[in-house]
């Protein structure tokens, strides 16, 4: 999966890929102070495509708000909400809205799920539907956090560590491997990184083609940009 950190105040974005074995569960957001956790499980293509490059995606997310006592499981098949011992299951095939005291949910048929956890976070999960007889690819999900300002300063995780901004500087622009993708040196988190100018896609407006987001790409699974290494974010279960 590709990660994009948008920094609108700098008119810029950072991006990196995390490649891990199918089945791996990664922590995306972890905020013990407010009790918000988001984990996602990776899935691979049905089989290795002819180009030899196996794509990996998220197919299942587990979202917990401990303080509100809410658990959500979102898969490419269904959406399950568990609160106070009661479970509600929604299907992607429906357009539905649920307004509760602590959580608001809106599903747009076969397309997106918007979740607002009161007083903490708002996010959107996109469903990418792939032709079911596609020889290699399968359905997958995208996770977009829209409003994070109520999470605590100690929020962490592969996405969460960037919620309070990141200081970085880019210098030494030079030709890269591809003429339209120059390389540069980035100073971030006390490290000097080789980065490449490129773009990644934001699918919120155009679920099929996405929109290009120009970004500085950090190589090797975001090494140097993320705290620690990507394996530090592997967790044993969705909840």
């Amino acid at each position, binding site marked *: 999966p590709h990660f994009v950190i*948008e920094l609108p105040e700098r008119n810029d974005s950072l991006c990196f890929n995390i490649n891990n074995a199918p089945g791996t569960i990664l922590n995306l957001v972890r905020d013990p102070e407010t009790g918000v956790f988001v984990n996602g499980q990776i899935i691979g293509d049905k089989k290795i495509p002819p180009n030899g490059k196996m794509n990996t995606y998220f197919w299942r997310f587990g979202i917990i708000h401990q303080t509100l006592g809410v658990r959500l499981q979102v898969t490419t098949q269904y959406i399950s909400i568990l609160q106070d011992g009661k479970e509600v299951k929604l299907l992607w095939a429906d357009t539905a809205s649920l307004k509760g005291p602590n959580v608001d949910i809106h599903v747009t048929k076969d397309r997106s799920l918007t979740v607002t956890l009161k007083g903490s976070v708002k996010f959107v999960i996109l469903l990418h539907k792939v032709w079911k007889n596609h020889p290699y690819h399968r359905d997958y999900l995208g996770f*977009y956090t829209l409003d994070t300002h109520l999470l605590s300063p100690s929020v962490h995780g592969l996405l969460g560590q960037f919620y309070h901004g990141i200081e970085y500087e880019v210098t030494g622009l030079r030709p890269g491997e591809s003429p339209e993708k120059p390389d540069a040196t980035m100073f971030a988190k006390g490290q000097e990184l080789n980065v490449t100018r490129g773009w990644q896609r934001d699918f919120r407006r155009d679920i099929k083609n996405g929109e290009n987001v120009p970004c500085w790409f950090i190589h090797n699974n975001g090494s140097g940009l993320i705290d620690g290494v990507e394996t530090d974010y592997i967790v044993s279960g969705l909840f």
Partner: protein
Amino acid sequence: STNEATVEVHSVTVDCTVTSRFAHTVMTSVALNKANTSKEIFFEVELPKSAFITNFSMEIEEKVYVGVVKEKEKAKKQYQKAVSSGQTAGLVKASGRKMEKFSVSVSIAAESNVTFVLTYEELLQRKLGQYEILIRVKPKSLVQQFQILTNIYEPQGLSYVDAHATFLSNELLPLVEKTVSDKKAQISFSPTLEQQRKCPGCDGTLIDGDFIVKYDVNRQQGLGEIQIVNGHFVHFFAPPDLPRVPKNVVFVIDRSGSMYGRKMAQTREALLKILPDLHEEDYFALIQFDTSILSWKDSLTKATKENVAAAMNYVKTIVDNGGTDINAAMLQAINMLVKDRQGNLLPERSIDMIILLTDGMPNSGVSDISTIQENVRSATGGNMSLFCLGFGNDVDYNFLDVMSKQNKGLARRIFEASDAALQLQGFYDEVSSPLLLEIDLQYPDNAVDYVTTSHFPQLFNGSEIVVAGRLMDNDLDNFLVEVVGQGFEEKFNVQGQATVVDWNVMYPDESYIFGDFTERLWAYLTIQQLLQKSESGASDEKANATAKALEMSLQYSFVTPLTSMVVTKPEEGDEPDSSFIADKLTEEQRQQAERGRPMAFAQAVPASRSYAQALPSPVYLVDGD
């Protein structure tokens, strides 16, 4: 405030009493719920960030709920429920660069009223030759009885008093009544309900903005003013007509990539305004840095008209690029001052000063903050002053603040608003005219104790030194005071004897002027200085300073960063009363609040991004390729 037509705001009064710069403000609001069902009523007050809340109460159905100041950690534990539901600091929020907002809401039964009373205190600081009282008033509806009353008592005598408000129209202007005598001033503003109306017949109010009183006191040569009241003394020192000491100033300018855009433009703009204000006898240098350091000239240059003009042309060429090597830039600036001193290129009686303009995190060369601080401290050797201007919401203000204080200076945040260049210039104006260096205010050891800081590296034109302390006994025959310092041409040295001010003689018509103000002023100043020490002092000093500041905050009922005010508010029906906690914000918390505010992002979103305008805040996403 209320938008409910059935809730009547009966009165809003702001009563501010200033006694020898110490301002005690009481804001009282009475609202009546005329409906036949209960209504929620909000009380929101904005107070200066330098003020400490000292009291808050709500009176509902003849029952008074009073806020209690407790040690922050204990209050948190005791009121875990409030903390766990995210209400910590919920009553106080940052509001702009000068103010913070206290807000509370309470549900009021049908046909009953509520009285809110908030009290806060602060020591007014003399800046650019004046003291400023800032009262922000924003009633959401017309108020039956509205009054702002300010009484100023200054035994030194008032040299001028000026009052204005951002909302004053030609109609409201005559309603500001100002009575000034030699040692006392009263300013009142009390528009009727009709006078508050935006237009005849409409409900909107004209009263929305800042009411500002500015004044200065008469100053005399010599010792300054020493007041002794109820076993405490306070000494105000700001002698007039001293010649300014020439300065040698190195501007160290961060031009790293993160300064790009507005910050860089504002830096250039500010420097272009500041440079022509240099006095001809001053020397100056410009050093710009990213990962490499670039000096305009190898030595400091005399601020002649020609040199200043050349420097201004140079400033126009500064553009952003690359990383941030604060350490190397600072060491080069220090080295330049040391080298020029050693080479006798600078006037003997002059002050050495560095002004660092930066937005942040060092990430090139030495990037460890404590190492940079230590390098700078050891390189300056206590021989120069460092002033730091921190740009933007992400600046590590604490790093700059500590580094400045370790080097006889101070730090200021520059908010990236449209007037950032003016803020920079204003700060420069404050520190650009040193009058005295290494000032010591000395009091007899056997007569006083618990004296606040009495040594100051410099006195700037338009500012004032304040020292307060406790008297050991009431025998004041030997209360000799001496002030020594280094002036432009010669040593400054004055001695004198302090006398007790008889407030009953000075203000015979006043039955009560809050009598313990000198003690509270002393406590306020002591706590402020202890809080500073707990941030930037030596490690063994920090713990002691924190403990002492906490003890005094509790003793004098000040809501400081170490204490919380616990407010119990009634709930409807069978619900138990619930508690809320009001905290004092630290600079770090203010920054966090600013970072988290969606508006801050919205303002920063550039128009060039086609979809960014629709997004109030950044998006963090993960998706398939």
